[in-house]
């Protein structure tokens, strides 16, 4: 990911699309040292496997803990120590426990640096849809998604760029019910990393496609970043 010449083609940093693990590794590398981070259920959880000790990242779980360690195994499994996905986890030195209102105050009060979430759709201005398909017979379940999306200083989304039917999940306006308005700051996909905000969508880098090929897949105007910063 070394900086290349300042042209649109130069933002392609991989010959192939990234796999789930490669994407998790990339997100982990982009998290600033010393950050307080909440990783959502599913694909975002993979990010924890790639955080390095020297990054000194503290993981938050919304059911009342900072300093969460890896998934528990064997004799370390304790029903009173679980993560938001209700998976048994471990505690690291320096961990703390607190009640649910304090835990959500950590998000809602703007203390959490980054949350990483999955998504159905992200709009050109950073609206997020990730909690409900809107299908009439679906039982809605929101959990902490709206609080995370609204409260964290940075909201990173991890998803495949396209649906199984080949439709872009980056859209002009979300058709699924919203989780939050204008909250997403970055979108990590198998084909590209997008920076989202009030000024529209900027492509930081592409994987296995050129900027022009990417633009053909995505129905919103894209801007190319000036240069890739590794």
């Amino acid at each position, binding site marked *: 990911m070394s900086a290349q010449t300042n042209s649109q083609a130069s933002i392609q940093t991989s010959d192939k699309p990234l796999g789930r693990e490669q994407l998790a590794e990339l997100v982990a590398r982009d998290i600033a040292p010393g950050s307080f981070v909440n990783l959502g259920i599913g694909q975002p959880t993979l990010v924890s496997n790639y955080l390095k000790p020297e990054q000194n990242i503290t993981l938050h*779980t*919304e*059911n*009342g*803990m900072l300093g969460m360690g890896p998934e528990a195994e064997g004799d370390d499994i*304790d*029903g*009173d*120590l*679980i993560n938001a996905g*209700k998976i048994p986890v471990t*505690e690291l030195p320096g961990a703390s*426990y*607190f*009640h*649910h*209102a304090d*835990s*959500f*105050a950590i*998000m*809602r009060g703007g203390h959490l640096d980054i949350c990483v979430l999955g998504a159905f759709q992200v709009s050109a201005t950073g*609206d997020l849809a990730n909690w*409900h398909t809107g299908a009439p*017979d*679906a*039982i*809605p*379940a*929101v*959990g*902490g*998604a*709206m*609080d995370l999306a*609204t*409260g964290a200083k940075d909201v990173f989304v991890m998803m495949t760029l396209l649906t199984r039917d080949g439709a872009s999940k980056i859209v002009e306006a979300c058709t699924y*019910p*919203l*989780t*939050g*308005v204008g909250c997403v700051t970055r979108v990590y996909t198998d084909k590209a990393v997008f920076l989202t905000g009030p000024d529209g969508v900027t492509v930081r880098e592409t994987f296995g496609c050129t900027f022009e090929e990417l633009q053909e897949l995505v129905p919103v105007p894209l801007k190319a970043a000036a240069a890739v910063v590794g």
Partner: protein
Amino acid sequence: MLTFVDSVNEAVSGIKDGSTVMIGGFGNAGQPFELIDALMACGAKDLTVVNNNAGQGDQGLALLIKEGRVKKMICSFPRQSDSWHFDAKFHAGEIELELVPQGNLAERIRAAGAGIGGFFTPTGYGTMLAEGKETRIIDGRGQVFEMPIHADVALIKALKADGVGNLVYRKTARNFGPIMAAAAKHTVVQVSEIVPTGGLDPENIVTPGIYVNSIVKVA
């Protein structure tokens, strides 16, 4: 007033038809299974239940729902891989659901215990969960007005109580316990151990005994 009772059945005897009952726990961590079983046995119906979830598997809250004793659920995450009893009641139109973002659920419970009449929050603004609610722009951000959630009774689980009802919890089983204890008119706690007054370090008390009405030790 604080009482120590000998059985879980006695502990829940004050719960009536139509009561609003807060039940602690996030998944199975902190869920007061013995008190819920006693609530099942006591026969109270038309309950409004406040919990993060809507029951898992074939135990606890899930059974209460299966037996048709819950009129309304107030929760953030009803749909899970093993929430089949809630799913069936919901699809049959036999249970009402008030879906609340988890942070709003926690803060609305906290507000009730703290005597707050409501609050504005950005969470949910611009989403279908804010439909019909008062909104304002505060500090340039859209915010939604949320009301406190009060309860007649809270059923919670703690690790230890002392003789005046001070409580300590264990790890992530703490979750909703402290805020529910404050939000309910009558708080019932099941604990693993009761220690003599003075046996808990005052610096480490999580829930002061003033919020606790009834304590029962379970095996």
